[in-house]
């Protein structure tokens, strides 16, 4: 896991436990005119892909590589390959914009007469860096996997849905194990896009807070290895997916679709609401989104289940938000600890759920993670600590 709080799970955990947000004033040059805060990963700027992957070298793929190289993930994939064979390990990754920044910068250079269209826009730029499949293709080749692969792009639920799709691929016998994850890096289209919708906060985002006024965009990459035959401290227990059928960029005000995703996740994991000890919120800090999610949770769980949003540390990492929620949930279960809600000083009294403000040790057996997105797409995941 790599995000604005750090490169690798250790750094992220320390930031979460210390209450140190990774957000900073927007200093991402192509969008510097926007007065907002961002979750930027500095290490990306200094990194380069190996020579063999030169065609794939862009911000999104560098961010993917940084995360792949952390926490023994490469070795875990190698072990899975030894057990199952490279052709039996799938790759399912979520992203919203992949490496679109490469094309955005090329377009800007053309507009400024710094480059000629024919020199900078090429099939290789599109296929290896910009296209939605680019990062999945890069990761698959970097890990030397030859099993099935797909990019899931359902806005901000993308990298939660990867768990559902990979589980189906394993159940169908399409592969025996799968690398799942999400990668989204800072881009002009997302920052200016959320600005156009007046959704960006001028401050570090304050999820669930009475004075919350919008989101902070972050970048992140995270990966997990799903292997039904491997032993692990935490297992993926189920997923629920639904649609709002309401609006392209606003959530259903009562959170009807979100509630349905959570119920289906519980059903899929064969659990009841009381079996969930903690919910990692989608919690973007947009006023309507946090309110709708609160209503949805209240309708399924009542007001007792502890909830928190970690977006105040990382920002909203869009297509990587699902995997960030899942990996922070996994960390919570392994550490028997739950994160608070960074930057939230006073919980909005309108919210009915039990919002946890400060990180603390807690006995946890199962957590649920939410990820919702544009187009009214919802996905909830259940993770379980194995005794």
């Amino acid at each position, binding site marked *: 896991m790599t995000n604005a709080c750090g490169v690798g799970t250790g750094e992220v955990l320390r930031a979460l436990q210390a209450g140190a947000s990774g957000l900073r004033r927007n200093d991402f040059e192509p969008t510097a*005119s926007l007065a907002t805060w961002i979750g930027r990963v500095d290490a990306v700027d200094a990194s380069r892909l190996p020579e063999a992957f030169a065609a794939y070298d862009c911000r999104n793929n560098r961010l993917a590589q940084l995360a792949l190289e952390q926490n023994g993930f490469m070795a875990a994939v190698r072990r899975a390959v030894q057990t199952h064979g490279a052709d039996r390990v799938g790759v399912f990754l979520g992203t*919203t914009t992949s490496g679109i920044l490469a094309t*955005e910068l090329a*377009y*800007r250079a*053309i*507009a400024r007469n710094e480059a000629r*269209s024919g020199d900078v*826009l*090429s*099939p290789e730029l*599109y296929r290896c860096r910009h*296209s*939605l*499949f680019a990062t*999945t*293709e890069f990761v*698959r080749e970097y890990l030397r996997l*030859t099993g*099935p*692969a*797909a*990019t*899931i*792009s*359902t*806005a901000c639920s993308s990298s939660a*849905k990867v768990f*559902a*799709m990979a589980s*189906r*691929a394993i*159940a*169908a016998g*399409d592969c025996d194990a799968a690398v799942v994850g999400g990668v989204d890096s800072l881009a*002009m*289209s997302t920052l*200016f*896009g*959320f*600005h*156009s*919708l007046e959704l960006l906060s001028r401050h570090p985002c304050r999820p669930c807070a009475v004075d919350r006024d919008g989101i902070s965009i972050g970048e992140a990459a995270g990966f997990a290895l799903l292997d039904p035959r491997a032993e692990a401290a935490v297992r993926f227990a189920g997923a629920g*997916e*639904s*649609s*709002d*059928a*309401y*609006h*392209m*960029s606003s959530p259903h005000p009562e959170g009807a*679709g979100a509630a*349905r995703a959570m119920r*289906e996740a519980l059903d899929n994991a064969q659990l009841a609401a009381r079996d969930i000890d903690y919910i990692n919120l989608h919690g973007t800090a947009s006023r309507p989104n946090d309110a709708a999610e609160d209503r949805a949770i209240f309708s399924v769980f009542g007001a007792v289940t502890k909830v928190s949003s970690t977006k105040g540390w990382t920002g909203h990492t869009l297509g990587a938000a699902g995997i960030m929620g899942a990996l922070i949930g996994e960390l919570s279960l392994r550490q028997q600890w739950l994160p608070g809600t960074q930057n939230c000083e006073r919980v909005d009294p309108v919210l009915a759920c039990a919002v946890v403000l400060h990180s603390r040790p807690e006995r946890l057996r199962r957590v649920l993670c939410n990820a919702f*997105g*544009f*187009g*009214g*797409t919802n996905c909830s995941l259940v993770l379980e600590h194995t005794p």
Partner: protein
Amino acid sequence: MTPLAIAGIGVCATGMANWMQAQSVLQSAVLPSLDPLPRLAADCLPPVERRRANATARLAISAAMQAIQGMPPEDVARLATVFSSSDGDGEVLANMLAALAQPQVVLSPTLFHNSVFNAPAGYWSIGSQSRAASITVSAGASSFVAGLKEALGQVLATGSAVLYVAYDAPFPVALESFACSAEPFACALHLTPVAESRVDGYGRVEALRTDPDRRKHDPPPLLGLRHRFSGNAAADALPLLQAIAHRRRSEVAFPYLDGSLLWLDYLP
């Protein structure tokens, strides 16, 4: 393997505005001339969404609407969907890139929300009032079969029907260096467990396999039709559609990753 039924079908492409027209093209001995598509109505959408949905979403929705024709709305509202596309919406992309290259960036909110890859699926769920699961996938040039795999897998896993919609739309001239599709092509398949299928369905398919069984018939050649839609990943549906148009038992091959092929048995 468990066979699945094709209960409904839709096609929307240059020269093939619907399944009727597609059948006659697919059954013809010589490749006929293909007329450009008219502006698509997408009249299942409420007025606001109909105004906002752009050509690519309309293309996907037009194919989807055909595939569920005659179904009661309450059944459509329960239908899970799988969408696939290699490249999404090139027109929205080009407009957004042009706006972002200006010294003063002004982006329209509608342009931005239309830029999410799952925009056609989002519009579809609003139009069909379906709160069921929906996923949108891409696997580059292999997007059609990657989505088909997921759709078949969902029917087998849940025992419920799935609407599979594959689409790729033309990229504008400004992005022609990307060598994406020049012609629109969308195809929709309403896939159901066999027990639920209607008698007047479109035949059955079995789960995708990696190994060919050479004893079966190969589909007949495609009269240069696939070439006409070169660069359009969704047009990988053509050999399957051709087998259905001929109601001919076939073993259909789809190009997959690393130059491999996946095989699907079609039984009329």
